[in-house]
């Protein structure tokens, strides 16, 4: 018995010695400038951007884990790769000393709930009554939690289910892996090579929005002067497709871009944070949420429909200007022409009715459902029975049809 004890003791000590020889001890205790212990810094040389500098923030406030340990497994216990994911964001970006109001707002925003899409689909397909509104169950979060399904929801899950902020970044295959990620879907850009770390920024580039906003409404494409062609890739040039292709294989052709794009403006030059991150209210449709109008900038005082100030619009030297986020230039904001735009005979016309000379239209867009095949459910990342296919045909780039909505003459687009 005693021999056994001694034997066991020697083995344990030998094991400790072996472990000690094998492991790399930190040269010192690493702390942030405020004196918080952050042993992640002993192994990691990644350097996030200035506002989240590694000496100041460290790593664990964002990536969690245990910053008090030096062993990789123990330090990485509970660590997360993407702090912006809406499942953890209250503990990371939204922690009390950082951005505590943001997660709640963002989770209510349409881009997180997709309530507009889901509600309209269910209504148009007759699965809920025409007047059904404010349904908390019309949200991605609810679908993720309950796994609820129906024909309309199946369509949503398979064809639209990757364009929401609950989407886990890197989960889906191919180009879809880039999508989603919560806060990171908008705020993350590639960092400089030597930093080894992506950069979180307020200067949100166009690509981040267009990663989602490139279908149905096609706002992201048209804005840049891209027209989604029919699927032929014509005209052929030198034996190959003449048209450019998008990352997902769709063909596009160059058309004149939006005046604002040409001036170097991006989506967030116009769309303020309350529209994109939400203002804390749970809306049903984007019409209720969008607050910027053309007049906010042109002939207005930099105030949105809901009375909020657009951050970079101000009056300088008697003129209203917009300071471009990326251009850094002071762009003059011209008021609408009193005759050409605002003649009383044109009072009911929306600005776009005249100022959008061409609009992509899809007269032949339709959908096919094949119950025999399988397709990826983008919410659960699993193949389930039933495959949807969208077809585009009779694509036209033409003067838009005008229609009357309320008392206003607006553009009406099929597709």
């Amino acid at each position, binding site marked *: 018995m005693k021999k056994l004890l001694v034997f066991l003791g020697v083995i*344990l000590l030998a094991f400790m010695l072996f472990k000690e020889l094998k492991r790399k001890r930190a040269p010192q205790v690493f702390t942030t400038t405020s004196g918080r212990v952050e042993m992640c810094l002993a192994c990691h040389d990644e350097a996030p951007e200035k506002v989240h500098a590694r000496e100041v923030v460290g790593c664990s406030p964002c990536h969690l884990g245990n910053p*008090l340990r*030096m062993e990789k497994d123990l330090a990485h216990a509970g660590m997360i790769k993407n702090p912006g994911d809406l499942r953890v964001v209250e503990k990371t970006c939204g922690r009390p000393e950082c951005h505590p109001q943001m997660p709640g707002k963002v989770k209510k925003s349409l881009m997180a709930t997709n309530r507009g899409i889901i509600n309209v689909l269910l209504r148009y397909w007759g699965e809920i009554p025409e007047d059904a509104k404010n349904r908390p169950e019309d949200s991605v979060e609810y679908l993720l939690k309950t796994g609820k399904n129906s024909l309309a929801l199946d369509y949503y899950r398979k064809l639209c289910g990757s364009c929401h902020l609950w989407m886990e970044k890197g989960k889906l295959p191919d180009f879809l892996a880039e999508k989603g990620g919560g806060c990171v879907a908008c705020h993350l850009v590639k960092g400089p090579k030597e930093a080894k770390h992506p950069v979180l920024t307020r200067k949100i580039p166009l690509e981040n929005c267009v990663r989602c906003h490139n279908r149905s409404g096609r706002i992201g494409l048209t804005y840049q002067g891209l027209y989604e062609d029919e699927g032929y890739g014509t005209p052929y040039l030198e034996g190959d497709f003449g048209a450019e292709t998008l990352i997902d294989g769709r063909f596009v052709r160059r058309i004149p871009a939006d005046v604002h794009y040409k001036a170097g403006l991006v989506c967030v030059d116009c769309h303020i944070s309350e529209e994109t991150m939400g203002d804390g209210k749970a809306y049903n449709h984007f019409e209720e949420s969008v607050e910027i109008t053309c007049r906010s900038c042109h002939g207005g005082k930099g105030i949105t429909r809901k009375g909020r100030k657009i951050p970079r619009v101000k009056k300088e030297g008697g003129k209203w200007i917009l300071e471009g986020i990326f251009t850094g230039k002071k762009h003059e904001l011209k008021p609408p022409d009193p005759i050409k735009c605002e003649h009383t005979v044109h009072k009911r016309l929306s600005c776009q009715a005249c100022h959008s000379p061409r609009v992509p239209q899809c007269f032949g867009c339709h959908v096919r459902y094949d119950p025999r095949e399988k397709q990826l459910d983008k919410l659960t990342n699993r193949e389930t029975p039933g495959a949807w296919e969208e077809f585009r045909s009779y694509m036209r780039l033409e003067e838009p049809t005008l229609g009357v909505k309320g008392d206003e003459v607006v553009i009406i687009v099929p597709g």
Partner: protein
Amino acid sequence: MNSRVNSFIAWAAANSFLLALISGVFLAFPFRVEMPLISTVGIEGVLPFGDFVRGLHFYTGQLAFLFLLLHIVYSLRARSFERKSWFSWSLLVATFPLTVFALFSGYVVRNDEIGSSAGHIAESLLLEVPLIGNFLNHLLMAVSKEGVHRVYAAHFCISFLLFIGLCGWHFNLKRLKIWDLVYVALVAMILTVFYPPLLRPFEPDLSVLGPWFFVGIQELLRHLPPFWAGVVFPSIPVAALWAYKKYSKLAGIILVAWHVFYFFLSLVGFSR
């Protein structure tokens, strides 16, 4: 030592205590009281074998407390107190809360999230003690004003004085059997290797629990005013232990009932 008490357990308690003292001395050199958490992390992450020694200190401390509890149960059942004067019985009973303090202050001293919050709660509880609350707090805690300076001194001094006092008068160190010591050391080593004690980083959520034996009191603090939950309630078992010499039956019932209740309080606390 009395032959009717379980001598293995009695010596296991003494041995764990001794090992905790020895490992504590090794930790005391690199420990810096003005930067408690930083130096504790340094001991674990920078010093060779540092985490091993800290693990041993942690587990021998825990074992000392657990074996002491067992030892008390056995001794009460063996009625060994009958041959002690009231004076020496009172002194002996007083060593129990001191041992708990030695263990508790160890958590406070390392000053991670568990320790730091336990320190602040203990400070506000000490201030609830009538008349001498302020004095006690200054002697033992005062973490909010002075960091862990006082707790550390108390941790160190009380542990040593306790051990010296006990060997002078409760057991004879000369009779210590080396194999009992080896046995306890092995248990602590195995625990250290397979379940290294973890420091808990500060987290924004408010679900901080104190040391495991403190969770029941924390739970009770949610339901009762601090004076009752944090001063009167924990004094009950100590008073009952003391009174056991005369009113064994009643005190026994109180002790069992208190511990059953405390067990459930802790369960509720942990499941939050």
